[in-house]
């Protein structure tokens, strides 16, 4: 097994860990963390693909590498937005939650 495959497997495992965290963790902040973990797993898959495709004297295929850079930035922007939302929610309610129960209750009552 070469290094690329190893990191590819690592990426796959991180995807699994991230998915698990995103689904089971009730706290929004931890969900955001899990999302970042998931994202980095995906980026590692890109890295594996780039590394495997090393040619022309380069250590890896620059196209997927460039895509990863773009994707990291996008993921960061997403994280920033999500965190801002969590904080605003925490400021408004004293606790951050996306639990459906509370939102349903609000829906049912109608808007004031």
């Amino acid at each position, binding site marked *: 097994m070469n290094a690329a495959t190893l990191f590819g497997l690592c990426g796959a495992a991180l995807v699994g860990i991230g998915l698990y965290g995103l689904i089971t963790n009730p706290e929004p902040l931890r969900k955001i963390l899990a999302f970042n973990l998931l994202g980095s797993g995906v980026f590692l*898959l*890109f890295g594996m693909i780039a590394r*495997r495709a090393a040619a022309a004297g380069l250590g890896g295929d620059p*196209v997927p590498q460039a895509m990863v850079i773009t994707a990291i930035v996008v993921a960061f922007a997403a994280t920033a937005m999500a965190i801002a939302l969590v904080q605003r*929610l925490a400021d408004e309610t004293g606790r951050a939650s996306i639990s459906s129960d509370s939102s349903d209750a609000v*829906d049912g009552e*109608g808007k004031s």
Partner: protein
Amino acid sequence: MPATTVLDATTADGALLVLAIVLPVVGILLSFVLGGRYAERIAGVLLPAGFIVACIIFLKVWQGGEPLIYIVGGWQPPLGITLRADGLSVAMMVAMAIVICLIGVFAHANFGSRAASVETRAPLVFWVMLMAISGAMNMIFLGGDLFTLYVALELLTFAAVPLVCLDGRVETLQAALRYLLFALLGSILYLVGTALLYGSYGTLDIVLMSQRVRLEPATLAAATLMTLGLFAKTALFPLHLWLPPAHAGAPAAASAVLSAVVVKGSFFLIVRLWFDALPGLLSVAASQLIGVLGASAIICGNIVALRQKRLKLLIAYSTVAQIGYLFLMFPLAFSADPSPHHYGDALTAGMLQTISHATAKAAMFMAAGLIYAALGHDRISELGGIARALPMTMFAFGLGGLCLIGLPPTGGFLAKWLLLEATIATAQWWWAIVIIAGGLLTSAYIYIVLSRTMGPPNAPLTLYAAVPKYQEVAALGLACLSVLLGLVALGPIDVLQVGRPEAPMAGLR
């Protein structure tokens, strides 16, 4: 020029495609620096301009019968990125541009900023996001590269989420957070797919991909993940958790754009993926599975819509159900005994349904917003008498409802006719039952709402705010569009087939 085989070259008028994308981007940047007071003016110029560009592209494609292509930077794929306008793109582009423009007209009442002396929050955010949505949709329709499409998809999400919580109430914040997180999950799954596809084929260009694609585990895994990610973003049942609170909670203009336009972006990508990038790869079993999801969306969404007590939630659940109709095209196009004719028909039906839902749903959300503005609430049981106070609004709502039910001559009728025709031609009668049941359930809740609004008021009706005429006209205009859409059968419907590869009958399966 790269040494790869030359596939496409920039066609004459291909530059229009760049214009369609650049205009909204310029609008965003200018609004940022000129500030919220000018945002509406900028949008007021650029959105109609975008519509005109879309129309010109539509005409060129329709008359030329050939897709328009633009090679960005002169770099051929697989190295570079192409923009490609085929029949599907141009039809969707024009439709969405109209919807967005009319939503812009409608939104002037709530987000007008021309008279303001200082920049305020909501107008700036709304107009910038509206332009961003228009740009992102154009990018999604024109993009020829799966990764570019990912970026466009994220652009769309980032533009949509702030619209959900524009008024800052707690429940809308919750809805926005939910939406954001689930959409992010969806896009990251999409990204996994692009990674795997690149690993297999060394390109993400859709045309190149369709030529190179093989039936192999990596490709199937990639396709699965991308599809599921896009399902999550399209809110296909049972992944619709974010949609009802987000669409029901947002301000009316935002709800309209979210429900009518935004969910169509990710849906369009699913179509691109299976019909263009990976032609012939969708197995019958998988297409039936997608159909089952669509069918459960129709049944479940409609029933739950029937039970809603608030108008906007009802409309939001109706969106959940209508999204289901979009996915019925997959089992019909990828049936066990395929024929090119039904492949095209199912695709046409799906696209028509997309467009007619866009116009009808935007009109309905606008109408609901006007009712809310006038009454200060949208509880269905207390809507009595509003039809007399706002006849034009209710008329728009009713017309939109007709389109959802699928009565002639609406676009919904034409779409359902084509779908039914395909169910019969491919001997899949079970989808016909779903289509019928869905139509009846839809008519039930439309009837309930209309009967309530036309009935006598429980208490003397007090209107909190006067409803501007032009808002009603915008809603009515969209509703009329949805009704008249059935007339496209008289001509432009053929445009959808422009630039389509032959149905992959001798494909991979």
